[in-house]
């Protein structure tokens, strides 16, 4: 049988259109390597900022608490008040029993000046800082005297009422001229946490910043046609990454319970990318053939489905969060559980999404205003978090705080076919100051 050319073409097509040939073994590793090269490491500025905060905190801690090879036993905490004593004021006297020669008369004596230089240095460097932790009974707000009144007989001066040396300090060998039982306190014991048992109420001021991940929630309102649009939006919009920063004031009202309010700012970006699969773009160049003086059309490139739109959508929210919290403490460290609600003050947005009517990209940025998608304000949300804190100093903490926030009211307007909300996950790093 003699077959036509078309019949022969059909044979070629039948034999080769679905032919299966395994590729060379090196192809798949090459594809894997090429895909890995496409991944880019992004070190966001918030990571650098968090590292800077942590480094600053570590440096501050190192400067405030020098390293001591000696094991420091935890001393009982004492009440602290606003004792204002100049660190360089060597005339300041700590509340300690000191045996000094009797004075001829009742006179005010600068006790420290009467000591020899070695004792002066001990008082200045080691005992002096204790003064902040010594408080006369019943007197809440008093600055320690700069001199002591000596009694005529020059016996040991009594401590400021209410505390004994042993309750304050660790036992140390006595220095010459010092009565037995004098205990010097070392600087390391100033790193104790705040005495919340004595001060059941306190104000805290906190500041934080950290990275943020935003997961978008798109829900239909019951119309089956919206499912297709929802899936298309999910395919064209990526997850959001950004940062959060803020500050708050907290009031500890019952040793372990606290209430806080503040200002919180969250900003995140997502990539919107859309390619029309049915579009074909031909890039054509005309070349003049001078020998024949004719124009020749030359196709340089062909793009299938490449009518692309790529936009970085950005969102920013300013909220007033209000929270309740509960703290557990163990020495210098502790954990706080907190949760509450937030009201949005300001919501800015810019970018593009697929238009529900036309199916092509359209801007929702108010200035460009091609489609109305988002509300003016983001409305209400709830949040919860766990704070792990560490006392650098009695009144200073550093903390790490993973937090979750769920948008309650939809971000989108009622006329939009989908309800859009957001779940934001953030890892905050910050400082607390007890005032």
């Amino acid at each position, binding site marked *: 049988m003699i077959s*036509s*050319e078309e019949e*022969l*073409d059909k044979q*070629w097509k039948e034999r080769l259109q679905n032919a299966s040939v*395994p590729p060379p073994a090196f192809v798949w590793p090459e594809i894997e390597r090429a895909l890995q090269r496409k991944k880019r490491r992004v070190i966001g500025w918030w990571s650098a900022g968090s590292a800077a905060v942590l480094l600053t905190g570590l440096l501050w801690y190192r400067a405030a608490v020098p390293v001591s090879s000696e094991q420091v036993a935890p001393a009982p905490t004492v009440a602290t008040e606003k004792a204002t004593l100049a660190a360089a004021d060597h005339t300041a006297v700590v509340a300690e029993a000191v045996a000094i020669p009797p004075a001829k008369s009742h006179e005010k004596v600068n006790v420290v000046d009467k000591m020899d230089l070695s004792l002066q240095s001990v008082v200045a460097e080691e005992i002096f800082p204790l003064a902040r932790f010594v408080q006369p009974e019943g007197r809440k707000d008093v600055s320690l005297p700069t001199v002591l009144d000596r009694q005529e007989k020059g016996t040991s001066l009594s401590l400021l009422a209410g505390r004994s040396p042993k309750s304050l300090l660790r036992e140390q060998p006595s220095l010459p001229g010092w009565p037995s039982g004098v205990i010097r306190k070392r600087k390391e014991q100033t790193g104790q946490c705040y005495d919340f048992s004595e001060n059941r109420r306190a104000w805290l001021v906190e500041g934080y910043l950290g990275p943020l991940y935003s997961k978008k929630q798109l829900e239909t309102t019951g119309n089956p046609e919206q499912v297709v649009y929802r899936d298309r939006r999910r395919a064209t919009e990526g997850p959001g990454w950004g940062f959060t920063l803020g500050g708050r004031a907290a009031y500890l009202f019952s040793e372990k319970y606290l209430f806080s309010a503040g200002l919180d700012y969250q900003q995140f970006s997502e990539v919107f990318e859309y390619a029309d*699969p049915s579009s074909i773009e031909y890039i054509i160049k005309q070349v003049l053939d001078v020998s024949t003086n004719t124009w020749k059309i030359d196709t*340089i490139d*062909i793009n*299938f489905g490449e009518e692309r739109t790529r936009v970085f959508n950005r969102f920013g929210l300013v909220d007033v969060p209000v929270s309740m919290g509960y703290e557990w403490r163990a020495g210098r460290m502790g954990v706080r559980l907190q949760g509450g609600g937030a009201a949005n003050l300001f919501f800015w947005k810019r970018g593009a999404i697929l238009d529900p009517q036309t199916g092509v990209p359209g801007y929702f940025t108010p200035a460009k205003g091609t489609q109305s998608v988002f509300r003016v304000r983001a409305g209400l949300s709830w949040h919860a978090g766990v704070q792990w804190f560490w006392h650098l100093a009695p009144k200073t903490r550093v903390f790490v705080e993973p937090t979750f926030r769920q948008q309650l009211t939809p971000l989108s307007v009622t006329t939009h076919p989908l309800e859009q909300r957001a779940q934001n996950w953030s890892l905050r790093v910050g400082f607390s100051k007890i005032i």
Partner: protein
Amino acid sequence: MYAVCLRYARTPADAADILQEGFIKVYTKLGQYHFQGSFEGWIRRIMVNTALRTYQRHRYELEQTGLERLPDFPQEADALALLSEAELLGMIGRLPDGYRLVFNLVAIEGYSHAEAAEVLGIQESTSRSQLTKARRWLAEEFDKTSNTGLLNPMASKRNNNGT
């Protein structure tokens, strides 16, 4: 998909490069597949497009091989059954670039001459002539490979008789 790339490529190495580049595009553009048509067809389209871009980039010219002098001998039905897929792919690969692209698009992929001409940036008449020349080239190559004498039955008989 490697077989698809082999049909469009000059050499197996070129086919591997096209396959690699095509799969990377599949991976990065996966989100653009909206379930319109079969998934295999979508991937095949990407592979074909990648192959065409490769040769457009390299500005391969449609070569003239002087096959115009070949008589137009039709082939018998089921003649291709004599050869394996690998041999047939090898024959396709030995086609000159222009003939190979047109043959793949029109004879195997099913494009019309107008569509193929638009894709390749040539005239429709050029597409038709290139396809005819590709068929003749393949027929000659087929005879050499299978020794069936389809193009020249007398040559086959002489070979068989040892004369």
